[in-house]
């Protein structure tokens, strides 16, 4: 783990997201798929805590050696919005690589990779490493609409098959990644599942994998305080190995990659909130308060 003042080499739009490439050789050479970066917010703004982003690419060799790429969703809050507007040659205070990485299967070869939205960024890093280890990979990519599906074309270069799912049907099939899961798992003859998605989706993926006896690894995206293990706030309740209850493990240092079969999902996510009983307000004919 290193702290660096890293220069932004470039930023570019990738669908609904912004991809940011940094020059940070010491962090890049240590980075592995599933790990993340903690990026400080600027002085004098209303954000106190760092923001955390999984690593999309870490180039150790070649013309891009020493660079790191991560992906932000500009719509996910003011802090991230600030970062999405940063431009080349600005400097960021970066700590990384943080957290435990995905592990690669030694014997099993057929890997199914599932991601929803921005989470796909770190699955691409994983996919490359798995392909380099002669694994077969298949992917399911999801998003609310076409632009929220991360790099579907690139996925086709890495994976044997790619199932694309959008909530509105604007790309691929209409539906969520869960709808594609049974068929994709069968088609790929999946032996292991890797997933990054919002927790409720991961919960269902975990249940599927358990029902089918599939080993799985999930990277969770819990809101973090510090990102390096100090504040004890990004915890996930995980069953103890000796089966004596559970312990709250920190997603930042004990994760973000976990074995989903050990996560106590209901304790972690709470029971779903009952559906609202109030009638939704009718849309105003004049479109809100715009002048």
């Amino acid at each position: 783990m290193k702290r660096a003042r890293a220069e932004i080499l470039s930023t570019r739009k990738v669908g609904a997201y912004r991809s940011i490439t940094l020059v940070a050789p010491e962090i890049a050479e240590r980075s592995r798929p599933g790990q993340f970066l903690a990026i400080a917010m600027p002085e004098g703004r209303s954000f106190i805590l760092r923001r955390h982003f999984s690593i999309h690419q870490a180039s150790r060799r070649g013309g891009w050696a020493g660079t790191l790429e991560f992906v932000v969703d500009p719509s996910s809050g003011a802090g991230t919005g600030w970062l999405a507007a940063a431009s080349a040659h600005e400097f960021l205070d970066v700590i990384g690589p943080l957290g435990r990485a995905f592990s690669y299967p030694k014997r099993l070869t057929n890997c199914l990779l599932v991601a929803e939205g921005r989470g796909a960024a770190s699955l691409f890093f994983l996919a490359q490493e798995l392909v380099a280890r002669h694994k077969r990979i298949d992917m399911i990519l999801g998003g609310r609409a076409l632009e929220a599906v991360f790099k579907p074309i690139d996925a086709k270069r890495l994976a044997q098959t790619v199932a694309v799912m959008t909530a509105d049907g604007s790309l691929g099939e209409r539906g969520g990644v869960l709808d594609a899961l049974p068929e994709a798992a069968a088609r790929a003859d999946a032996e292991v599942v890797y997933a990054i998605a919002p927790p409720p989706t991961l919960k269902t993926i975990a249940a599927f994998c358990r029902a089918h006896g599939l080993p799985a690894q999930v990277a969770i995206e819990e809101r973090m305080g510090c990102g390096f293990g100090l504040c004890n706030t990004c915890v996930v309740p995980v069953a103890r190995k000796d089966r004596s209850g559970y312990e709250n493990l920190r997603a930042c240092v004990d994760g973000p990659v976990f074995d989903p079969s050990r996560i106590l999902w209901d304790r972690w996510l709470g029971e779903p909130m009952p559906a609202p009983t109030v009638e939704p307000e009718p849309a105003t004919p004049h479109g809100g308060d715009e002048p």
Partner: protein
Amino acid sequence: MSAAPSLAVDLGGIVLPTPVMIAAGCAGTGRELAGLVDLRRVGAIVTRTITVTERVGSDVPRVAESPAGIVWETGLQNPGLDPFVSGELLRLARGGARIIVSIGGETLEEYVRMTSALQGRPEVAAIEIHLSGRDDELDRAVLGAHADRLNEIVGAVARMSLVPVFAKLPGACDDIVGLARTAVRAGATGVTLLASPPALGLEATRDRPRIGIVTGWLSGPALKPITLRAVFDVAQALPAVPVIASGGVRTGEDAVECLLAGAWAVQVGTATLTDPAAAVTVAQGIVRRLKTAGLASPAGLRGLLQPPEPVATEEDPVPAP
């Protein structure tokens, strides 16, 4: 100019190389800060609060951010006394920092048991008494906000302890000077001002079906003026008592303000979560100020701020009437 000022401070029996500590719950368990800060350059670290038995801690969400600070609640997650003493404490000590152990509990007996277990441990430089636990016997929200309880607990810990004892007084109470006086009369070496006040944060994320509620404590920049007032009032009333300022200290200037108000040392908490080396940069900021002022030690700043009129400094002259 004389030689570089020394930052060493003596807090009633514990000598620290700098007056800047890392506050309870922000220094990790001995692994996290490796490579991010040299703990030998930190005045001391206060451990996360330890309880007699393990606490698994509260459910998520545990943190909500606001412009003024963070609202947090960990439910005092910790491994319990024995695993702490045999594991975490030794690991922290290997990092080279002086260690102040924060002890928490709900009953007098728990505090006594912990003090007894820490007695004679060479790694422990001092004890800080966490008093924000619930007082179930008296059905009160915060243990340390009441003089009778404070007197009982601090008295017992101070009588047994072989190292200095600091009482961390509650962030929301009626009479901070009265509580400080009670703690000192009961035997505390000094006081840490203040514990985080109770707060509530809401967190909506798109990934969750409902809004998260963090019923916890406030930390961060919002606290500095509150800390300064408490430090000032207590230092005025009890000038011989070591006062440690905690809450809202992020920069060297913040620390200098606390020292001017009468603090003997400061703790850096939330700032460490963003800048792991904050305790070192804050100390560097104090050195710069001492050099500018031509002072030899942080004690030279202590209490320069006097009522009713603040002492003028070069940067901030008092305007002519």
